[in-house]
Structure formats: structure tokens, C-alpha cells
């Protein structure tokens, strides 16, 4: 079973192998926390998105500014398994959820993915790592209650990771009927332009999500590229401006958690013991159907 990648020069990929690889990654992911807008992309769209990102960032150093979906791991794993012949040379995932960072580390160790690592990082803190990434990827809180301010924070950190001389792929809401996604798209594009980047490509309404209150809502890929001669406007600083934070995770929902800490379990990946108990087989069991 092969999947033909329309309108590209990329070779076909074995769709069964690709879906099974992404299934391995999905199995490894922590459960989403809705209060932080952790809403996972549907698996078929993850397969196509991962292939796209692998090609877009081929041979490059890629920063993920948050990655609940685990697209980063899919990208690294597809290449490792030989399902695609391209992919980033190095991937670093920056996320404030230690469960996500831990899941990446465990999966990378198990599958010997040497080109991916994770860093616990809250995007409201200054970005203190070397700004030597070629490109960034982010699928941030979509900013329905703040006209995209939360998206802009993640994009800003991505631009800082690339020292304002790279490319970025931003995944945000895209809907034909609702007003707010259009306002957010316009504001994010304006912000990128002000920051010295232009929209190189927009891929509308690509991805579906496990979103029970609006399963038809899609997201798009917005791909930015920096203008020639880009440079950072100044050092990276903590974000404290109340106007950017007061509706960060939704109306009247400012950030109040610095990190999500993981409760370590020896039986990681297995059913949690508080979900079940064993009822012993009785000696007279044969008489009780």
C-alpha cells in the first residue's frame, strides 16, 4: 500500500508502514490536558504532517516550540525506520510539560533516535539556548480569546531560536465559517511581517483534531521565511505584559502553571493500577457462569 504525495517530487511512501510507525508514537504519548489546550491531531493527519515536516526541514536543525502531538518524534522515527529518506539533522523539543519531554526521551532511547532531544521550557521565560536553529515548528494555543496573542508568543520564541534568519511552520485554526480564526490568522501574519518574516506558503484546513466540541474545526500550516538581513531586535526576555497573558489559554485564563511535572511510574506505558483491580479466581468458579 503506497501513498502518492501529490504535487511533489518526493517518492511514494508505504502508507501502512507510516501509519504503524505513527501508531507507535501515539501509543507513547501522555494523555492531553485540556486546560492547556493540549488537543491532539488525528492520526491520519499526523502521518501526512510528519512526512511534510520531514521534507520541509530535511537536513536542517529544527526546534519545536511545544509539541503535545509528538510530530517531532514521528518525523525522527519515520526517517529512522526508512519510511522516508529525508528529515531534520537535529531536533530539539521545548515544552513546559515534563510528561511530554519524558515521553520523547524514553521513546528516543528505546528506538535509538539519536537526533532528537527535549528540554523543559516555558515559553514565557527567556529563550536561553543557542539561537542556531534553521527552522521552528509550533502548534500553540490558538488564541480564540486573545486575537492570537498566545500564538504570537510561541512564534516569537521560534523566531528567537532561529535568530530571525530561518523558517517557521505555524499550525493554527482555519475555518470558513467562524470569525475568530480569520482574525487570528491576520494578526499572526501581521506579527510575523513586523518581525521580519513573510508568509512563504499557506496550506488551508489540513488537520483534524480530537476536539469533541467542534470536530469539524481544522488547522492550517502557515510557513514563514525571514526576509534577507534578519536580526534579533534584542535579547530574549521574560514575557510579563498582562495584555499578552490575561487570555492566554482562553478568556480570563492566564498562565498559572510554570511546569507540568511528571509523576514518575515504574509501569510507564502500562494500564494504571488505579484503573482496575484483580478479582481472584474462586475454587468453585466452574459453578458460576
Amino acid at each position, binding site marked *: 500500500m503506497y501513498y502518492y504525495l501529490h504535487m511533489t517530487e518526493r517518492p511514494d511512501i508505504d502508507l501502512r508502514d507510516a501509519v504503524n510507525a505513527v501508531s507507535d508514537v501515539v501509543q507513547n504519548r501522555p494523555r492531553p490536558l485540556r486546560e492547556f489546550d493540549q488537543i491532539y491531531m488525528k492520526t491520519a493527519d499526523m502521518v501526512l504532517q510528519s512526512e511534510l515536516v520531514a521534507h520541509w526541514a530535511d537536513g536542517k536543525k529544527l526546534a519545536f516550540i511545544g509539541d503535545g502531538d509528538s510530530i517531532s518524534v514521528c518525523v525522527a522515527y519515520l526517517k529512522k525506520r526508512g519510511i522516508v529518506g529525508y528529515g531534520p539533522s537535529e531536533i530539539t523539543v521545548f515544552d513546559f510539560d515534563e510528561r511530554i519531554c519524558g515521553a520523547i526521551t524514553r521513546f528516543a532511547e528505546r528506538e535509538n533516535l539519536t537526533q532528537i532531544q527535549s528540554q523543559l521550557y516555558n515559553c514565557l521565560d527567556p529563550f536561553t539556548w543557542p539561537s542556531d536553529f534553521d527552522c521552528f515548528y509550533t502548534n500553540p494555543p490558538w488564541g480564540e480569546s486573545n486575537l492570537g496573542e498566545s500564538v504570537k508568543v510561541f512564534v516569537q520564541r521560534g523566531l528567537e531560536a532561529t535568530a530571525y534568519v530561518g523558517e517557521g511552520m505555524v499550525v493554527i485554526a482555519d475555518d470558513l465559517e467562524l470569525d475568530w480564526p480569520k482574525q487570528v490568522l491576520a494578526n499572526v501574519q501581521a506579527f510575523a511581517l513586523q518581525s521580519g518574516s513573510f508568509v512563504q506558503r499557506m496550506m488551508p484546513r489540513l488537520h483534524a483534531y480530537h476536539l469533541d466540541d467542534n470536530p469539524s474545526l481544522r488547522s492550517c500550516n502557515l510557513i514563514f521565511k525571514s526576509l534577507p538581513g534578519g536580526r534579533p531586535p534584542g535579547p530574549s526576555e521574560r514575557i510579563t505584559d498582562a495584555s499578552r497573558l490575561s487570555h492566554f489559554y*482562553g478568556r480570563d485564563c492566564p498562565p498559572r502553571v510554570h511546569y507540568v511535572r511528571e509523576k514518575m511510574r515504574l509501569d510507564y506505558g502500562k494500564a494504571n493500577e488505579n484503573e482496575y483491580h484483580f478479582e481472584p479466581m474462586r475454587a468453585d468458579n466452574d459453578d458460576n457462569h
Partner: protein
Amino acid sequence: MTIIKRGQGLLYMKVGKHAQEPLEAIIARKRKEIEDAGYALWGYGGNTCHPMSMVQPFVRDFQRRGGVIYLCMEKMDSQNVAPQSRADEFSVDGIRWEKIPLPIKVVGSRYALAIKNLHSEDFRISLEKTRVAIGRSMGKPGNKYIAGRVDKACLECTEDMPAEPEESSGVHIDLVAEIVDPYAVFVRNLT
């Protein structure tokens, strides 16, 4: 019933048997909780009315404008099979937890609305004259939103509704309560 005016906020919810307890028994129990504790916690689940990201800011916003948010409930047949485990604690923010007062019993739920003045009603709401007031579906007409698996919503009325709409139009509201501070909370059991 005078609550259905343009700009009015309401929380619509379908209700029925829950955790093997018939609706009439739940209503009687909640009225007793209001008598004894001054308010009741009405348990619910799902993500469409998340306490922190949806209900709390929705109610606060309307109260700032001087309004009251009513919980408008439509009775339905339900075979809800939620476990009968009783919640021990509640939290407004998911960080600080408090004991649920003894007279209040929340069963088989992850979230709960704080309510008082729970009473029977008999009127209809035209959902096409409402829109989703908050969240990722903000702006969507209520009748398009309340479909499939979605059975509750934070809505704003976009038009006045007649006191006696046509019999066939909209959804029938059988039960109404006033949503009171802290509006919506997380609940959990400790065992």
C-alpha cells in the same frame, strides 16, 4: 419566564438519569442540598463546558455586565452508566482542593456547577437564535453546535425570543437553576 432576551447568557444542558439514579431523585436530592448548604453542586462531564476555560469566564463576563446566568435544562432519556463513586473534594482552579461540604453529594462526575434556586419550568428556546459564547466554537449558531455528541453549551442569545414560541420550535426547557459563585468546579474522589 423572562430570561430570554438578546444578549442574555445561558448554559444549556440535556439532563437525565445519571450514575443509575433517576432524574427526579437527583432533583429532589439537589433541592435538599440547597436547603441544607445554601447551594448544590450539579455534576457533569465532557469538555464542552470545562470549568476553568469555559464556564467560569463565561459567567464572570456576563455578571460583570450585570446579568445572571441560568442553567437551562432539557430532560432526556438517558442510560448514563457513570460509576457511582462519590466525590470527596472540589477545586476552583485544579490546584487548591477543599472538602465538599457534607450535605452535598456529587456522584460519577468530573466537574460540577454551583447552583441555587433550582425549579421546574415550561418554555422553549430557539437555539438558532443563540450562538456559542466562548471557546473554539465561539460564534457558531447554537442549533449547529448542539448536535451529535454535544449536549451542553455556554450560549448567548442573539435575538429576543417570544415568551410563547411556536410549539414545534426549539428545545423544551423543563428545569432551571441560577449559577452562583464559584460557578463551576473540578471534583475528585480520594479512593
